[in-house]
Structure formats: structure tokens, C-alpha cells
């Protein structure tokens, strides 16, 4: 069975849970930016948790089905329509052969996950079907979808029910306004003054238009002041430069001290900008659902709080599994 791409959307890519193990040669994890929503979509249609789905950002694609199928859309409020008739998000539903799945305008969030029973069956590259567009690797021909593409779909599990729903409290979406992203200060935190450090956590930032799978840029807070230094050999003369180093996922670099960038699933693996800390693993999914202009606050936490948050995120996933399997 296959799916014909009539319209590709803005930047729709094939993603699963990613490709660990190659970051040391510059190939990032990739995979769904909102992993919780990706897993939910798969469980709704009876797939393995890490089956390949479509990740659509801001705008959905238009897809024609060549066979009957069961699908579910999770993540952003990107309202699906089947032959023009509205359908619910976070709910599995049947699609008949020849029907067209399209989407209404985005209501909330940023990324929708479109799971099809059987999973998108593109080749596995280095252990994953995820698209890494910068390296033209994985996914469908290493790139975002284009009109005319035909996506292969795997064989669905025997019993796939429609009308299954994920309850509101199991969706794991950002709720607070401004959105709070918890950060462990560290890495090159010592490069900025104490006052700049206080401002960084006190200011309200906004998601900048430059926000994609590589990283999210933020603006609107005060510029960071640096502790003076003699530039080390190999670092470069700007106070925000370091001798090129690895970048953790979720790390917050601030080129020139002005606009923080949080690296995400398609992170560049290293470079020459200092970092003030790292967004904790439990809050990475939330970033994937932020639209440009969304107000955000960075909240300072320590390791114990980060591990507690990670535990509670894992418990939410556990409840989701219990509800759907």
C-alpha cells in the first residue's frame, strides 16, 4: 500500500524515535521533536511505539490513500479532514481507499504527527527511518516531502480499531503561559556576569521566526554581559566564542550574547559558541510545539529536579501505554 502526496505542507518529514550513536561524526539523533505525541499517534493505530510517522509543521499535507487504512493525528491542533469532512485529533479513524486526508489551519501547537497503521516503510538507515535533511539522510530520499511522492506503508497489525481517543490529561502538551522551559545552568555559564545570569532567568523571551528542527532561537530578553578574558588560542576574538566543542541536545548557545538558541533533534553536533546551560530532557518535547512569538521563560533547576521531571514525564508515558494497549 502507498500514500500519494498531493500537497506536501510546509516541511513534512518522515520521523521515528531517532538514530542514536553517530553524534561523534556529526550525525544527530533526529526523530520526532515531540516524542510523546509521536508515540501516542503510533499507539492509537496499533503500531510499535517507534514506528515511522509523518511530522508536519505549522501546515498539514494533503494525502491520497491507495488502500483502506487506519490513521491518527496527534500533537498540534492541526484539524484533519477526510474528503473535506472534519475529523478529530488524538483519535484513530478509518480511511477508505481513494479518500483524501487534508488539514485545516493550525489552531494550537506547532507539529502534528500523522500515524498510519503499519507505519511509513521507508528504508532503515543507520538504525532509523528518520529524516536528517541537512545530511540528505534517511526518511523519504533524505528530504522533506514533495508533491508527487509515493510513500510506502507497512503491513498493519491484525486488529486496528477506530474511535480510540487519548484523554486530555495524557497529551503532555505545554499548558502554562508563558511556557516554562526548565534549564540546568552549566557548560560555560561562568562566562557571563552574575547580573546577566539573573536577567536570563527573569526575562520573558519570545520564539523567533528562526525555529526549526535544528534549533529554536529566542529573542526579547536583555543581552548577556560577559566576564572579561584574554581570548584562548583557537577560540576566536568574540567573547561568546569558545574553542569549537560538542553541543549537548537542548544546550543553549548565545552567539554574541544576544539571542539564545536551543538545539533540538537535528542539532549541529558542535561549534564555536559558548553555552549557558541545557534544557532538561523532560521539556524537550514542549519546544517542538512552540510557535514563533510564543512567550517563554527559562526556569533554573538542578539535577534532582531534572530527574524528578524526567520521572514524571515517563509516568505520563506509562499511563498513555496503559490506556492504549
Amino acid at each position, binding site marked *: 500500500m502507498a500514500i500519494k502526496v498531493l500537497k506536501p505542507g510546509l516541511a513534512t518529514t518522515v520521523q521515528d524515535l531517532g538514530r*542514536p*550513536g553517530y*553524534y*561523534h*561524526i*556529526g*550525525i544527530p539523533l533526529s526523530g520526532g521533536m515531540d516524542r510523546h505525541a509521536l508515540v501516542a499517534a503510533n499507539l492509537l493505530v496499533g503500531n510499535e511505539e517507534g514506528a515511522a510517522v509523518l511530522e508536519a509543521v505549522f501546515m498539514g499535507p494533503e494525502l491520497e490513500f491507495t488502500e483502506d487504512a487506519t490513521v491518527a493525528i496527534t500533537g498540534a491542533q492541526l484539524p484533519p479532514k477526510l474528503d473535506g469532512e472534519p475529523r478529530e485529533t488524538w483519535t484513530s479513524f478509518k480511511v477508505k481507499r481513494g479518500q483524501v486526508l487534508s488539514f485545516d489551519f493550525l489552531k494550537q501547537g506547532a507539529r502534528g504527527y500523522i500515524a498510519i497503521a503499519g507505519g511509513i516503510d521507508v528504508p532503515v*538507515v*543507520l538504525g532509523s527511518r528518520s529524516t*536528517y535533511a*541537512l*545530511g*540528505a*539522510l*534517511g526518511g523519504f530520499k*533524505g528530504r522533506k516531502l514533495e508533491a508527487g511522492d509515493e510513500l510506502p506503508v507497512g503491513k498493519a497489525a491484525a486488529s486496528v480499531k477506530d474511535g480510540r481517543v487519548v484523554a486530555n490529561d495524557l497529551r503532555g502538551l505545554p499548558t502554562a503561559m508563558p511556557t516554562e522551559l526548565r534549564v*540546568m545552568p*552549566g*557548560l560555560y*555559564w561562568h562566562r557571563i556576569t552574575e547580573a546577566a545570569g539573573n536577567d536570563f532567568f527573569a526575562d520573558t523571551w519570545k520564539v523567533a521566526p528562526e525555529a526549526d528542527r535544528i534549533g529554536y532561537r529566542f529573542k526579547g530578553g536583555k543581552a548577556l554581559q560577559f566576564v572579561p578574558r584574554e581570548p*584562548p*588560542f*583557537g*577560540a*576566536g*576574538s568574540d567573547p561568546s566564542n*569558545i*574553542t*569549537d*566543542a*560538542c553541543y*549537548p*541536545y*537542548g*544546550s543553549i548557545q548565545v552567539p554574541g550574547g544576544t539571542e539564545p538558541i536551543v538545539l533540538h533533534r537535528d542539532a*549541529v*553536533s*558542535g*561549534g*564555536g559558541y559558548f*553555552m549557558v*546551560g*541545557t*534544557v*532538561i*530532557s*523532560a521539556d524537550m518535547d514542549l519546544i517542538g510545539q512552540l510557535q514563533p512569538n510564543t512567550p517563554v521563560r527559562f526556569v533554573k533547576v538542578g*539535577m534532582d529536579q*531534572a*530527574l524528578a521531571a*524526567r520521572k514524571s514525564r*515517563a509516568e505520563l508515558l506509562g499511563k498513555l501505554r496503559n490506556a492504549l494497549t
Partner: protein
Amino acid sequence: MQTRFSFGGDEHIFAEVGEAMSLEAFFKSLFITNAVRDAKIKGVTEICPANASYQVKFDPDQIKPDDLLAELKRLDTASEKSEPVIKTRIIEIPVLYNDPWTHETLMRFRERHQNPNGTDLEYAAQINGLDSVDAFIKAHSSAPWFVSMVGFVAGLPFLYQMVERQRQIQAPKYLRPRTDTPKLTIGHGGCFSCIYSVRGAGGYQMFGITPMPIYDPNQKISYLRDFMCLFRPGDIVKWKPIDRSAYDAAVADVDAGRFAPVIRDVSFSLTEFNRDIDAYNRKLDGVLHGH
């Protein structure tokens, strides 16, 4: 050299071996990351050496962050007592310096450069106190370079020149980054050279181009069938200046699947290297050419 450790969130430990770039800091970060890999620590998912630092990614559900930190500190201390020797490879990379493709690109972005009236090579020769482009090419290609980091994007090597600091080539990045760089451009920024593995934006000075692909996600290139990235941190690179006809012949050989890169296994001793750098580099050259 006292390593500075920091948690990068709940999934990474970042270790800065040296704030400044040096062969010693690079060598130590490579040595320790090799030891971490050999230790097969449960819960460690990524081990990434960099120029003068390294990073370990882990799953805190499998190993407590403080336990991993203690283990890394132990390996850091143990490394000081070990003989600084690694087994690695030396790879010859043919380079057409002053090629037409990077030349076209650098002219297109001239207003973003420190010297709008010359070329990147002329500028680099001048600021490094060399009296001609030919002298610069000789300085760039006569000593080998360490692959001190692979990354930024897939398969891109950062290279550190294996000479004393006062002889090292240095050049600033462009004033404003370009939006285009030809694939396989030999670039240079700060004290690092690089090879652009894919076409794209870039800020390094452009010196030449290699006919030899170093990244192939489709794994069609004969010597990249086993793995799509050529370079690993710790590889040693020797540039081989070639002319246009040799470049064209190499491109044809790559396309026909008969290009065989010159790659030799070698053991590198930092102590012996530091004792007599030029003699050691001549010895490495001998390994490369089988004498």
C-alpha cells in the same frame, strides 16, 4: 591541565580538557574517549571527542549522573599515568588549490571578506607572513594535520596542524558568513582547517577543493560503502597538492568506482612527536608512501 566537568542537562556530561586549543588537550580528550568506549559503561549512548574537550551522553535511568561523573574523573586521572600513544590511520587527501569553483564562490561573496581586492589564498598568505600563494600552499600541505573533531554537520572534519604553535597557519573567518560553499572545499578558520562535507553556508577562508568525496549518505562511492563518513576523530591527514588534470582524472576515477584512497594504519606517540616534530612528520610521510 585540569579537566573541568559540567552536566549538560540530565543526559550529558561535558568535559573541557583545555580552554585553549593544543595538541596536548586534543590528545587527552581523544585518549579518554577511547578509554570510555573500551570501558563499555552501561547507559552511555554517545561518546564525542572534540578539539580540546569531549562529551558523553547517557541515559540517567540506567546510570546515576554522579556515578558516571565519578567514573569519568577516574579515567581522567588514570590517563595522566598512561603512555600517550594511539593507534590510528593516516589518509592522503588530494587538493586542487586555487581551483575555479571556490574562486567563483569567493568572488561572489567578496564584500563579506576582510580583503575585497584579493583572494582568500592571497589574504591568508599575507597575514601569515608568507610572500606568495605558492609559499602558503607549501606551508599548508607540508606537515600533516590531526582530525581533532568530526561534526557540525555529518562527516565534516576539523583539522589541526601538527607543527609548533608559532608555525601554525591562522586566519579569521569571513566578516559575515557566506550562504554558499562548494561541496568538498578545503576551508580554514582560526587555527582549524576543514573539509566541507556538503554544500552549504560557511564562514571559513576557502583554499581549494578535493576530488575525493568524504560523505555519501547513499553509500554508492566505493570506499564509503561500509560506512558513509570517511573520517573519525584521531585520523591524520596529509594534503597532496595536485593540478587540474590530476583533479579531473581523480573525479573520473571516483565516478567509475575505481578511486582508491591512500589510507595506512599507524601508531602515533605524542612523546616521540614532541621530541622532534619535523623528523616524526617525515616518518609519518614514510608510512603513507610505504617506505
